[in-house]
């Protein structure tokens, strides 16, 4: 026990706030200081050699003058002492009694705060002498008795029937402080005893420890005193928690006392923790009702900070874990679900960055906090995301909203959730889940969004901004299950951009293509790449065609037309409605030339002309001046009719051109009702009727020399969209077949389950296991693979 206490005190000596250490200046040495350790180390030599306490012998109080046995000069001391010892001088007969009386008088003087008649040096020497004459054990015993009597007497002041708690604590503190002060002084007188007799007898307490033992036994272990003391302390702490200013120095001193006396844990800590738990359990319940979530979280944060301050200022640091844990449990763990349900959605919705940071910080503290936060975060994204995706009314803004939503959530994960990987993964999972809640539409709209950004005339972004935007779109694209749906719609728009030369930037087109390739592999983009390749090849073909025409016998040509043909590979491009129209003879001549030229080069091919995609440049001789008109093929076919007649009816035009009815009405509308009206319609009006008569406008004027007459676009109908989706669905059959053959060719032999799981990795669209099974059956029928004869559910590749 004594060693233990000594150890503890040694351990604490550096603490600036130690009530005892402040007083080390008063005495030459303080029990438990480093010098005590030094003495410990010197134990084995202490028997033979007396330590040289030069610090004491040169103390500035002039005691050294009276020193009779020790030479004041350090160094010389040893020799002299040894001589003296050898000579063994005789002591006066009643030396022990007289000396003890002297020491007793001094101790009582210290205990009663009176001045000591003898110099400290003289007393010290007296102790030394007694020790050196084998009176140590007696001396120790006497001292112990003296100390005990004094401490015992102190109990009375704490036993009064009723006592103000604060007053009690103050008194207790005074008593403790003076006990320490006295013991230090007493110990400095009896230092020699401590360093010889005590050290040589391990079972005996040092003087300091003996004092503590007395104080504990006679004062603090008294049930009434202890209860009053601890209750008083708890009362002060509770007051402080309620916001009152309290005497923290008093708190600190008394708690230190409990620690020094080894009863902090048993007498104080458990009661303290219980009080803490009760307080915060009630507070948590109440404030969850009264406050909104951000307020509540701020309060919890404040409480935790306060408790940490308490630890810093007066509580023993050993209480830290249990205290903080108790606060966290009562204020956080108990209310995790409630906090999340009541507040998370709102914080996310309103982008409350700092509140979310705090929420995350606090939830990190408790065991299931982050897990629950993550689950609720995920649920919010799914709920919110679904509202963006599911409502057809909001289709126009869906993609932009998705981009904004993703950016907002990303920002929250990185700023508030410390880029926690669990959260970013959960974010991805949630996006993937909700975006696929609506089949095909998001894929279609993302494709259209990309088109709007890649189309010429989109000046809202620089190249770099466009690139960044495409990257963001790719993130959304990654979540889409039906990637082939995206491809189908993307292809439709890409075709338009390529054929009309409306692409904003070749670099951006290529960049987007390579992003798609990177994401989905070459198989996914091969047809899109084929489209670019077709455009390149067409250039060469047209150069060769011009060459061909210059060598051909062209004398019979009705007109010289600059014909350029884009040759598209069927299958790469979207399918267009085949339309047979009647071309004027001059065009038929050129078309025939081209057919001969092209099919002569490529045997086994056929060409299908796509009038809907053609466009022309016409020279128009208006009375007011010559104009060049940039028109669609259909517009051109209509206008060319006016070379032969001035007034033509709708029916006549229809018969002459063979343009499909609806298409023709739109074409006439664009020529007679649009911005640049080169035709006049009778009667006037927007709708084209069967009996309407058209004439060219001889009055036509326009500032510009070259005029583009815009076509009236038919709104993409639902049927068209359905048709695109239908084609996508049909293509999936081929893709599944190809994927199965590819895998089987590589593996040669594979079990059904492994084949299915490999297929799921490869395919870029959702597919049911039953559908896969059907395709496998079909491939077995076609001898691409066979069932293994010995192992069930195993397939072999057939070469």
């Amino acid at each position, binding site marked *: 026990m004594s060693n233990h206490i000594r150890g503890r005190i040694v351990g604490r000596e550096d603490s600036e706030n130690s009530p005892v250490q402040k007083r080390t200046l008063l005495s030459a040495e303080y029990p438990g200081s480093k010098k005590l350790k030094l003495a410990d180390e010197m134990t084995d030599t202490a028997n033979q050699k007396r330590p040289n306490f030069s610090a004491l012998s040169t103390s500035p109080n002039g005691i050294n003058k009276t020193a009779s046995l020790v030479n004041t000069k350090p160094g010389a001391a040893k020799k002299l002492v040894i001589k003296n010892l050898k000579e063994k001088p005789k002591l006066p007969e009643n030396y022990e009694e007289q000396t003890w009386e002297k020491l007793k008088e001094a101790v009582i003087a210290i205990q009663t705060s009176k001045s000591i008649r003898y110099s400290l040096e003289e007393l010290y020497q007296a102790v030394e002498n007694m020790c050196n004459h084998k009176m140590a054990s007696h001396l120790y015993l006497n001292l112990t008795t003296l100390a005990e009597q004094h401490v015992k007497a102190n109990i009375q002041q704490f036993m009064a029937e009723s006592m103000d708690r604060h007053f009690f604590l103050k008194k207790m503190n005074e008593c403790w402080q003076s006990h320490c002060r006295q013991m230090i002084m007493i110990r400095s007188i009896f230092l020699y005893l401590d360093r010889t007799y005590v050290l040589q007898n391990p079972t005996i307490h040092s003087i300091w420890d003996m004092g503590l033992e007395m104080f504990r036994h006679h004062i603090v272990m008294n049930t009434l005193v202890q209860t009053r003391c601890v209750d008083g302390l708890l009362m002060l702490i509770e007051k402080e928690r309620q916001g009152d200013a309290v005497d923290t120095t008093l708190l600190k001193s008394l708690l230190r006392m409990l620690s020094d006396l080894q009863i902090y844990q048993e007498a104080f800590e458990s009661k303290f923790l219980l009080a803490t738990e009760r307080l915060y359990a009630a507070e948590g319940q109440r404030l969850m009702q009264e406050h909104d979530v951000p307020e509540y979280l701020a309060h919890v944060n404040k409480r935790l900070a306060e408790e940490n301050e308490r630890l810093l200022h007066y509580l023993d640091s050993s209480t830290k874990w249990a205290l903080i844990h108790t606060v966290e449990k009562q204020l956080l763990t108990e209310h995790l679900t409630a906090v999340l349900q009541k507040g998370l959605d709102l914080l996310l919705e309103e982008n409350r960055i700092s509140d979310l940071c705090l929420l995350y910080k606090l939830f990190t503290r408790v065991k299931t906090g982050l897990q629950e936060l993550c689950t609720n975060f995920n649920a919010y994204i799914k709920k919110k995301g679904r509202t963006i995706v599911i409502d057809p009314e909001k289709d126009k803004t869906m993609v932009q909203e998705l981009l904004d939503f993703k950016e907002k959530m990303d920002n929250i994960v990185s700023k508030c959730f410390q880029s926690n990987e669990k959260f970013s993964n959960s974010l991805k999972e949630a996006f993937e889940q909700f975006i696929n809640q609506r089949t095909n539409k998001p894929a279609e709209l993302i494709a259209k969004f990309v088109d709007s950004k890649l189309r010429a005339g989109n000046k809202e972004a620089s190249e770099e901004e466009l690139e960044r935007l495409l990257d963001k779109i790719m993130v959304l694209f990654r979540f889409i299950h039906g990637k082939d749906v995206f491809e189908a719609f993307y292809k439709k728009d890409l075709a338009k951009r390529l054929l009309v030369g409306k692409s904003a930037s070749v670099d951006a087109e290529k960049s987007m293509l390579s992003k798609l390739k990177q994401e989905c592999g070459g198989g996914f983009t091969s047809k899109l790449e084929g489209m670019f390749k077709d455009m390149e090849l067409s250039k060469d073909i047209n150069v060769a065609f011009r060459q061909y025409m210059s060598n051909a016998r062209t004398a019979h040509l009705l007109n010289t037309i*600059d014909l350029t043909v884009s040759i598209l590979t069927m299958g790469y491009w979207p399918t267009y409605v085949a339309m047979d129209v009647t071309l004027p003879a001059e065009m038929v001549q050129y078309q025939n030339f081209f057919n001969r030229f092209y099919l002569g080069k490529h045997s*086994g091919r056929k060409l299908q002309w796509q009038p809907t995609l053609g466009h022309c440049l016409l020279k128009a001789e208006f009375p007011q001046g010559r104009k060049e008109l940039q028109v669609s093929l259909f517009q051109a076919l209509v206008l060319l009719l006016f070379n032969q007649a001035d007034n033509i009816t709708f029916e006549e035009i229809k018969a002459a051109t063979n343009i499909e009815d609806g298409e023709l009405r739109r074409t006439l509308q664009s020529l007679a009702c649009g911005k640049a009206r080169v035709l006049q319609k009778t009667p006037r009006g927007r709708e084209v009727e069967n009996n309407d008569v058209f004439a060219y406008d001889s009055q036509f004027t326009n500032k510009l020399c070259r005029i583009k007459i815009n076509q009236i676009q038919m709104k993409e109908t639902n049927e068209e969209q359905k048709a695109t989706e239908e084609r996508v669905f049909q293509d999936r059959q081929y893709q599944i*077949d190809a994927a199965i053959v590819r895998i089987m060719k590589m593996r040669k032999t594979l079990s059904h389950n492994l084949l299915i799981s490999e297929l799921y990795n490869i395919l870029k669209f959702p597919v049911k296991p039953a559908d896969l099974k059907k395709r496998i059956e079909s491939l077995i029928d076609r001898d691409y693979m066979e069932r293994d004869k010995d192992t069930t559910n195993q397939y072999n590749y057939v070469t």
Partner: protein
Amino acid sequence: MADEDNSSDRVDNETPKPEKMFTLKKWNAVAMWSWDVECDTCAICRVQVMDACLRCQAESKAGSGRQDCVVVWGECNHSFHYCCMSLWVKQNNRCPLCQQEWSIQRMGK
């Protein structure tokens, strides 16, 4: 026509009507090419002949093997992927559709 101003103008303009109002200068046409086949699906691999055959698709990850995977016509005028047919004739030198002896009429280019 209902407009009076217009009708008076029209009289003036009747005379200088040019010989040819509109002249076609440029024509940007679009044409789609495909193999000139009766049936657009290869009866052997059941993939459209415009796409690479099933084995070629499985072969190249890029899936762009179409250039090399051409179409072949028999004397019977039936057509297949050249790849598919050359494997087929190793076992059975007859057209899978009409059972005539297989001989190549022409190849796609």
